[in-house]
């Protein structure tokens, strides 16, 4: 995907945001949005964000569903944990080695993981693509492994949603 394509995507994206901000669609808004977006992109040049994949709506929907599910579930758990009387919970720092080692994938996976309560990204080892996650309420190896699998599942859903074909293949192989 060339830099020009990036710019166009950005332009359209920004225009969309503009229309969302005004909340009403009108030609004036559209043109205004395009104009403002253009000005913004000229005033503040677009940085290189390498994006090699393509969008897959179905997979994306699946990702969103599971994400929402995790979010609600874990949120309740943590909230309960916070209010539960007794000793403070134990926790663990677990390294998860992702299979697709690109900036975008690392970031998105990290975001998804740490949005889900109970898990928090402490470090990212970019050279080998490892996320070190602080996981709340872990008391033994078994729970740790369970979390590692969960994290990899999250990565898989993301890659399936927006990854490039070979990335999807890569993830699929490692799963089987």
């Amino acid at each position, binding site marked *: 995907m060339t830099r020009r394509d990036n710019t166009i995507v950005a332009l359209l994206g920004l225009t969309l*945001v503009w*229309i*969302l*901000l*005004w*909340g*009403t669609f009108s030609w004036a808004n559209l043109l205004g949005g395009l104009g403002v977006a253009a000005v913004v992109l000229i005033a503040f040049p677009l940085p290189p964000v390498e994006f090699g994949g393509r969008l897959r709506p179905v997979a994306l929907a699946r990702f969103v569903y599971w994400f929402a599910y995790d*979010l*609600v579930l*874990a*949120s309740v758990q*943590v*909230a309960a*944990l*916070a*209010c539960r009387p007794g000793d*403070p*919970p*134990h*926790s*663990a*720092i*677990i*390294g998860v080695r992702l299979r697709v080692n690109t900036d975008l994938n690392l970031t998105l996976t*990290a*975001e998804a993981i*740490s*949005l*889900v*309560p*109970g898990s*928090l*990204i*402490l*470090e990212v*080892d970019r050279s080998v693509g490892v996320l*070190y996650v*602080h996981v*709340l309420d*872990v*008391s*033994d*190896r078994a729970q*740790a492994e369970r979390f590692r699998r969960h994290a990899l599942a999250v990565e898989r859903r993301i890659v399936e949603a927006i990854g490039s074909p070979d990335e999807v293949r890569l993830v699929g192989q490692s799963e089987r």
Partner: protein
Amino acid sequence: MSALDVAASACLIAGALFSLAAGIGLTRFPDVLSRMHAATKPQVLGLLLVLLGCALRFRNTVDITTLVLIGVFALTTAPVAAHMIGRVAYRSGEHRADLLVIDEIADHEPR
């Protein structure tokens, strides 16, 4: 009070409760890292619920679109803040190591 209003009220109260949980966790949890969990996480869901409640009340695109943007911004930024703080907390030893059953960073690069 319409059904939508009821739903909205539910969302709002639930969201508020999540905030309360965050507050409690913040005071009860032993070290920065665990407090981070209590603080940042339920917040996100709580915020989303509140926004949903608003949307159910307003019921017009003008405002709902804004609410959507708020949600998106929150979802994108919250984890980053958490990550940055957590990282500093760990690096500067602000956490209680005795509560860690496993520490793979330490195993990987002992310091």
